[in-house]
């Protein structure tokens, strides 16, 4: 049995240590927002956060996620950066088929959390691992910049 902390909640699952986190999320826990795209960390559709760092769940053994805070698309809206990214995606009508967008949003949220005002080069580096076949890249770039300019609505201490 493996115990994971996902989106702030503890989950215990019957999984072998080498089972990729992607299939634990999707097939054992029914959390389907994280997508299967390639299975070998080439497309980014399965991106989740481990302690805020974007990781490819399709190649991450579940044992490597134990003891870390896992965040998925289902809860990224609860973070200031994630909320801004989701809103920017809607404001700029980024999405087409949407299948890769969980991964895109997770990658973009991690970028903004780390670099609040990313340059084009920062965006290239953070997002070039995420494939979109609908070709939403120009809007993704604009939406990240748009999100970066959005004041955070999260409550801050004085």
């Amino acid at each position, binding site marked *: 049995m493996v115990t994971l902390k996902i989106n702030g909640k503890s989950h215990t699952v019957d999984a*072998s240590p080498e*089972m*990729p986190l992607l*299939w634990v999320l*999707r*097939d*054992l826990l*029914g*959390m*389907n*927002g*994280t*997508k*299967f*795209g*390639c*299975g*070998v960390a*080439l*497309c980014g*559709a399965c991106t989740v956060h481990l302690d805020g760092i974007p990781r490819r769940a399709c190649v991450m053994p579940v044992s490597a996620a134990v003891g870390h805070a896992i965040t*998925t*698309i*289902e809860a*990224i*809206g609860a973070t200031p950066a994630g909320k801004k990214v*989701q809103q920017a*995606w*809607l404001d700029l*009508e980024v*999405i*087409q*088929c*949407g*299948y*890769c*967008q*969980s991964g895109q*949003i997770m990658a973009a949220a991690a970028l903004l959390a780390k670099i609040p005002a990313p340059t084009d080069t920062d*965006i*290239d*580096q953070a*997002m*070039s*691992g*995420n*494939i*979109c*076949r*609908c*070709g*939403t*890249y*120009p*809007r*993704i*770039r604009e939406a990240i910049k748009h999100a970066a300019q959005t004041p955070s609505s999260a409550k801050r201490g004085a």
Partner: protein
Amino acid sequence: MTMARVSRRQILTAGAATGGGLLLGWRLEAQARVLGAAAKAAPSVFAPNAFIRIGTDGRITLIMCQVEMGQGTYTSMPMLLAEELEVGLDQVRLEHAPPNDKLYANPLFGDQETGASTSVKVFYEPLRRAGATARTMLVAAAAATWKVDPASCRAQKGVVTHSSTGRTLTYGALADKAARLPMPAQVTLKAPKDFKLIGTPAKRLDTPAKVNGTAQYGIDVRLPGMKIATVAASPVVGGRVASLDDSKAKAIKGVRQIVRLDDLVAVVADHMWAAKQGLAALDIRWDDGPNATVSIADVVQGLATATQTSGVIARKEGDAAAAIAGAPAKMEAIYQVPFLAHAAMEPINCTVHVQPDRCEVWTGSQVLTRAQATAAKVTGLPLEKVIVHNHYLGGGFGRRLEHDYVTQAVRIAKQVQGPVKVIWTREEDIRHDVYRPYYYDRVAAGVDARGQPIAWMHRLAGPAILARYLPAAFRDGIDPDGLDGAVHLLYDIPAVQVEFVRHEEPVLNTGFWRGVGVTHNTFVIESFIDELAAAAKQDPIEYRRALLGKSPRARAVLDLVARAAGWGQPLPAGRGRGVSLLYSGWGSYLAQVAEVAVSKSGEVRVHRIVCAVDCGTVVNPDTVKAQVEGGIVFGISGALWGEVTLKNGRVQQSNFNDVRVLRINETPAIEVYLMTNGEAPGGIGEPGTAVTAPALANAVFAATGKRIRTLPLERHLRSA
């Protein structure tokens, strides 16, 4: 294309609807509860046609006959209905249509299909009429209630108001009465000047669920007791399982069953990880069959030989052969485009539950009735015992116009107790695609002393996809899809001949892509016209303009793109600009200018793409722009790198390591300019892709002086 037509009456006449249905984004458990409750409560519903349902509770449900695969139909179709129904997009709920050719046939094809960039084009009028019919009946119901003239009432935002007294009734309050009224003999559609929605950049209705992971794709189906399977089908078309040792696979924890069929082996497991491990542990020996030794060179040779003989004439004006023979100068060239995979982001999948008396299918399909029919055929059940639940599609691009994966999943599910979700690995998805065909084209032109073309001959060889897919559309030996664009040549040339040599290469399954005929014909035409311009030492845009005297809309997009792109203005050293023009059966005109730089090692960097678009009447301008932007990105991937090759009958590519697609850091600045006019709506899902390859090839020529006539560009540029 000319195809079977379905009468408007068939589209608009629907039986009385019952309540309930599958509402998007609802969980299956909830759906089951709703269905159960609906059956018991059986609320009174106003359903004047198959697209609109208004409950007495005020709930307005629009039924989506065209599927959503990213192209924005789940916004544009509601806009057409809502415009005439006089409701806001914020007031409606959407529902996937069930399979039903009688109610939901695409008028162009005669069955329920979402493809060929046709949704807005063919449903522009029928859906508005459906909305207007409902609105007319609701207004009539209000007028009858108040005993006033319907002309003295108006509908707005789901409410009918009696103008002089200010009395109001909501659509929900009127639903019961409206349902008892006869269908109006005729209804008046709004004049375009009165449109509130059509032509405005409406927010997409499908996106809120797509930013938070709740949107349900086929792959997200979960059912009680469901198993997960993954599959290895014969790596060679026509191959068979010769022998199988599954002992190691069966020993893997979570593996429940191995299904061996004639041409495939599937591992059924508790979860995908066990299924994948099980698949890797199988020891399968294949009998590769007749294609065991086929390589890509064999395919090319077969096509090259086929073009030695003349084909079926698809267009003829004057005597092109004689005119070329007698012309002061002659130019000829051979163009080739490769097999292409779709590589939609959602790998192919289909969930099936076969029971003795029924079969249920959950998937994402562009052709629901074909999915239903194949499941009925495989199970031997009558059609009405097959229930197909459609979902959002994680990309279609023509791949999900095929139902091969539904057939396969039902064959597997017949061997499994309970529901099973069959998921293809990405490798299986790439290697068992239904590929854009390889086409081989010969073109020739005779030019006069000034370099102007006086004759044009275009002979293309490839399979006739429609002969397989829609036989009624394959007439007189002509595949209208393969010839799309070629027969639409706009240039004013006195003698034109276009020929089709049907040549099937049954070594790979071939089908639709994001543009089939047009993707290759536009590449050939626009590259070759560029060659003629270069030989005549004329500016590529001026050369084209001079030949477009009879095509003002084409000339207008060309002029617009030239202005917007700064055509003729100096570029940094090493860069080149290329232009291309597109017109086809889609009915849209596009002109594009690409700016590229080519490195010493032959890498092509696309810096900027400018595209001018005239697709006639626009329903949702932001979606049109998005489709063109995305089409261009798809086109760049295909043109620079896309190809599927064969060795020993096997596809050599497997995943995104060798199916290279454009990434964000490689994406150029893309500018899209829409012309506005009142012409009939044209298709826009595919043209952006088709117009891109020739613009890039022409830009590469401008930058390097090298004319690349075979795609993909980069590989052939390196060997040029």
